[in-house]
């Protein structure tokens, strides 16, 4: 019997950006055969306890637990139905805290760098509701005084540019905007390597994005520094952008859509993938793109 090729995939993303939910939905899709063109589970191999656990929670539309303690090993033996190609996808579930500490403490384990060196493709996760924007005081003041004018309130007296005594909160790394942290993480990952990185930028919880824009346009507008960085370094990165709604909608809080999401007879119909030229339920699409040449 032919041995599958190994494909090492790295999920990169700050805490709570949808990595585990993606993995849970992927596991559901590859083993359910519900989506015609998706990658399929070839046969069970090794330990699936973790995948079964998160896929169970996903099938109930539950919010998944935070991943802690670095990484959880996940290997899946897959077949591409269109080519018959066999592949062992190595896609450890990574804890977002690992990436957060990469920015905040500027340290990582040697074992993590070994993983990075073996990488064949990256999924870069961004969650639309988890973005710390670059927020300037003078822009906020300008918005505020415009709002006051429109509401005909007395504008407060401003003393712009005064050499006022420095007060307020001292700088801490955690204050840095999401786009700065993401750029630095990518600079770290590529620093010691000469290879070309294939990256799918996964905008998770795509159901939260109400504007009619492509995933790339969305990133360009919301995280312009990250978009510029990826665009400027085409010799280092081959990039595509996809919106991914792995839950299909909100599963917590006031706006929870759990009731409607659970109505689907086939759970994979909840999932929505929006790529530049196709839309559908196939959450293995980002992986297939990474594997294509």
């Amino acid at each position, binding site marked *: 019997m032919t041995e599958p090729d190994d494909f090492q995939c790295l999920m990169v993303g700050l805490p709570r950006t949808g990595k585990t939910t993606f993995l849970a939905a992927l596991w559901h899709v590859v083993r359910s055969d519900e989506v015609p063109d998706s990658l399929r589970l070839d046969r069970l191999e090794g330990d699936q306890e973790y995948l079964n656990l998160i896929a169970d929670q996903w099938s109930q539309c539950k919010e998944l637990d935070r991943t802690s303690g670095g990484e959880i090993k996940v290997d899946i033996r897959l077949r591409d139905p269109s080519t018959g190609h066999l592949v062992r996808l190595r896609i450890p579930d990574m804890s977002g805290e690992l990436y957060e500490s990469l920015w905040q403490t*500027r*340290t*990582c*384990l*040697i*074992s993590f*760098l*070994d993983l990075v060196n073996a990488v064949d493709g990256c999924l870069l996760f961004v969650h639309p509701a988890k973005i710390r924007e*670059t*927020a*300037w*005081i*003078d*822009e*906020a*003041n*300008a918005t505020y005084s415009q709002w006051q004018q429109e509401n005909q309130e007395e504008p407060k007296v*401003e*003393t*712009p*540019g*005064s*050499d*006022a005594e*420095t*007060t*307020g*909160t*001292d*700088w801490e*790394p955690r*204050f*840095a*905007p999401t*786009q*700065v942290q993401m*750029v*630095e993480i990518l*600079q*770290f990952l590529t*620093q010691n390597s000469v290879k070309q990185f294939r990256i799918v930028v996964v905008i998770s919880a795509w159901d939260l994005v109400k504007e009619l824009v492509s995933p790339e346009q969305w990133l*360009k507008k919301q995280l*312009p*520094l990250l978009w*510029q*960085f990826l*665009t*400027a*370094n*085409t010799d280092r990165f081959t990039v595509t952008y996809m919106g991914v709604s792995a839950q299909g909608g909100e599963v917590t809080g006031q706006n929870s859509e759990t009731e409607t999401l659970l109505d689907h007879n086939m759970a994979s119909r909840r999932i929505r993938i929006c790529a530049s030229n196709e839309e559908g339920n196939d959450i293995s699409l980002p992986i297939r793109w990474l594997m294509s040449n």
Partner: protein
Amino acid sequence: MADEKSKAIRFSDGEFLAASEGGEIVRSSPTSVVVVAGMARSGKTTLVGELYGLFHKGPFAGHIFAGSRTLPGFERRCHLARLCSEREVPDTERTGFGESHDLLHLRLAAPNGTRSDILFSDIYGEAFHIAADSADECRKITILKRANHVAILVDGKKAVDKPERQRAFAGPDSLLRQCLDSGMLDINSNVQIVLTKWDLVAGQGDAFINDKFEWLIERHCNRLATLTVHKTALRTNGPICAGLGMDELLQTWITVQSRYVIPPTVDNNLYHSEFDRLDATWQVALNRRYHD
């Protein structure tokens, strides 16, 4: 073996580049070394920090952001202008004496894909007050010799303040004069006179400012390769948005770069200070720089 793998690796702290690291960049890719000079509180740190900040909103001056080896350094310098500092009015922390050999790094890409590195000095204002008064002190700012560009800032707020306005221009004038007379700048140098804080100034004192600009150009232009004048605002204030004037200034900085990569040789007797010792390799490479 397992022990080796569980060891931690530390990346550089990203607060600034040492001169030797700057030298690596200069030797490996087209780079502009920009010295931002000017009296205390004239807006040097804000100019550099908020130029980086402009790219947070999108492409700027026809260029896109391609990376930086000093992201924490920039973020820290911009902090007091951000909401997370919990201030009501933006400010910039004064540059300390100890930080004065730091370089900040910005990499940009043009639409055709060519990338440019820019290295900025962030020197505290007092160093320039002293340099304006003494040739020996001026020669201590060794990076002036290696600069592709020297931007001398005129504090815009002072330029429209009657008691202050003569001094606002006299300071930069004597600094420039000193740099030329002490040989730190010469006929190969590119100098920009930059009136800062334009958002506080617009509409006031135009005639005075333009007269002073002309006076500076007349006095010094024959001794320099280029001498240009600029007005900038790095804060948003009423109708004026942060970034005004920076487009032109950035274009100026990018057009003249060090283009030749010269292997360094070091003569140990040339050291004057610890700082020189640190970056002597770089200095040798740059002393022989070429212009377009």
